[in-house]
């Protein structure tokens, strides 16, 4: 990397800090810290949600898997985009009916009581901590692979910037920096593809250089494996805490619908770009490791002056996801765990100080785990497998059908978690079927059964009490 590239990379970090500092004055209440005062219009909602949603898995991970498996992995990964499109059109607008809501726990409490909120809150924190730790590790991977710098200092510097702007500017800082990061990832990653295509000799050169199976819909996957993977992706990240919280930051349901659905459409396009980068890497450098696909293209093909911007784009993908999960973890802890357990109200200034302190603490711990004991991050990532099999089905039934059956929700959460754990430990390796699929199916059956058994004893259909 030349001098100009280092200047570009440094400028990216300076811009993040400047935006973080500028947004501090916008944060005067818990509502500002959690949902940016509900003032986020759809273009900003779309850009920031896309930046949060498109993480290391959608870029480096996608390119690596298409390098080894072909486009079939992209078609399975489209499950995420379909999920975003469906949630955007039919579910996200309904979240705006809950006046004053900041978290998924607020909705669960409204329908299923305090136990629903607490269970959702604890799982949300574990999920956010796991994803945050994974993104911290990804910062080290990106810097090491593209700049050949040691991982630990890279993780420490990258996460320090994320933690600082997230703790002082809250949602305002996270959303505004997400927008900058969205521009970086949405411009310089596609630019890398266009540059790389020239090296393969254009489309015909690319097609001739890779196995035919890599270009087919089914690739080498069996139909069962493909469907299992697609369903796992379809359900896996549905309304996870940062996405729900970002939806609450919009002024009304129209902005929520438009921004959320657009993110789904954008995801289809971005996945195609990332997957094709993997195929181009296979055509040009067939002997590299799959997860080195994008870093190799950046090192070998991107001209001096652009390298710094492309590395900034790869870091933007990871850092925007990290800051969103960090902000969500702090907000969820205060609203869904601390407040329900503490008697009496908490003052505005105290809540704000608590959220800022928790952002520093959670961010610091995630960085420490990534640096010292990455196995803890690996363990926390298992929380990801439990989100869809526990919270998603009762949440969707509450939002779409207005259910308030507490026994059904709690039965579904416990049954889904147990089924997921059993499948994860004993059956996943033998069958190849993702535990998310099994857990979600058990959750749905348990909900319907418990609802039918208890429907004459208090489980009833209703609209949100706080509807606006």
């Amino acid at each position, binding site marked *: 990397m030349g001098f100009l590239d280092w200047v570009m990379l440094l400028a990216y970090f300076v811009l993040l800090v400047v935006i973080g500092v500028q947004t501090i004055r916008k944060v005067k209440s818990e509502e500002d810290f959690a949902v940016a005062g509900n003032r986020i219009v759809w273009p900003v909602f779309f850009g920031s949600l896309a930046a949060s949603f498109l993480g290391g898995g959608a870029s480096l991970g996608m390119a690596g898997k298409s390098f080894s498996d072909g486009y079939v992995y992209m078609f399975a990964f489209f499950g995420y985009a379909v999920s975003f499109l469906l949630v955007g059109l039919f579910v996200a607008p309904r979240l705006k009916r809950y006046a004053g809501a900041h978290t998924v726990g607020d909705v669960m409490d409204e329908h299923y009581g305090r136990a629903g909120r607490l269970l959702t809150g604890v799982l949300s924190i574990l999920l956010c901590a796991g994803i945050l730790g994974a993104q911290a590790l990804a910062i080290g991977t990106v810097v090491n692979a593209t700049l050949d710098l040691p991982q630990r200092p890279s993780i420490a510097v990258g996460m320090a910037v994320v933690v600082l702007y997230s703790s002082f500017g809250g949602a*305002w800082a996270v959303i505004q920096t997400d927008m900058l990061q969205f521009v970086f990832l949405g411009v310089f990653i596609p630019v890398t593809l266009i540059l790389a295509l020239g090296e393969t000799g254009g489309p015909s050169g690319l097609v001739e250089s890779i196995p035919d199976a890599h270009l087919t819909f089914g690739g080498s996957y069996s139909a069962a494996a493909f469907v299992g993977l697609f369903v796992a992706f379809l359900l896996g990240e549905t309304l996870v805490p940062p996405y729900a919280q970002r939806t609450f930051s919009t002024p009304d349901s129209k902005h929520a619908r438009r921004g959320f659905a657009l993110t789904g459409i954008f995801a289809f396009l971005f996945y195609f770009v990332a997957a094709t980068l993997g195929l181009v890497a296979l055509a040009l450098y067939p002997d590299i490791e799959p997860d080195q696909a994008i870093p190799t293209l950046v090192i070998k093909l991107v001209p001096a002056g652009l390298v710094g911007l492309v590395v900034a784009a790869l870091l933007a993908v990871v850092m925007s996801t990290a800051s969103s999960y960090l902000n969500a973890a702090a907000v969820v802890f205060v609203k869904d765990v601390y407040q329900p357990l503490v008697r009496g109200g908490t003052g505005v200034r105290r809540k704000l100080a608590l959220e800022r302190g928790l952002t520093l603490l959670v961010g610091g711990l995630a960085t420490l785990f990534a640096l010292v004991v990455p196995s803890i991050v690996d363990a926390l990532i298992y929380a990801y497998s439990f989100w869809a099999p526990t919270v998603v089905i009762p949440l969707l039934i509450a939002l779409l059908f207005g259910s308030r059956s507490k026994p059904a929700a709690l039965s579904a959460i416990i049954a889904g978690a147990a089924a997921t754990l059993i499948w994860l430990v004993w059956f996943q390796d033998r069958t190849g079927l993702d535990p998310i699929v099994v857990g979600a199916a058990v959750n749905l059956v348990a909900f319907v059964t418990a609802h039918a058994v208890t429907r004459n004893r208090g489980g009833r259909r209703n609209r949100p009490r706080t509807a606006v």
Partner: protein
Amino acid sequence: MTVYSVLLYAVPALVIAVTLYTGYLGFKFYIAEVVRNPEE
């Protein structure tokens, strides 16, 4: 093959165009909300 050839260039170009337009709208929002009205 022809459709694929078009997609290979059209999709990244579309991603860049959507990103730049969204970034422009986001920048206008940033100026209006954060720079001009920091205390609101």
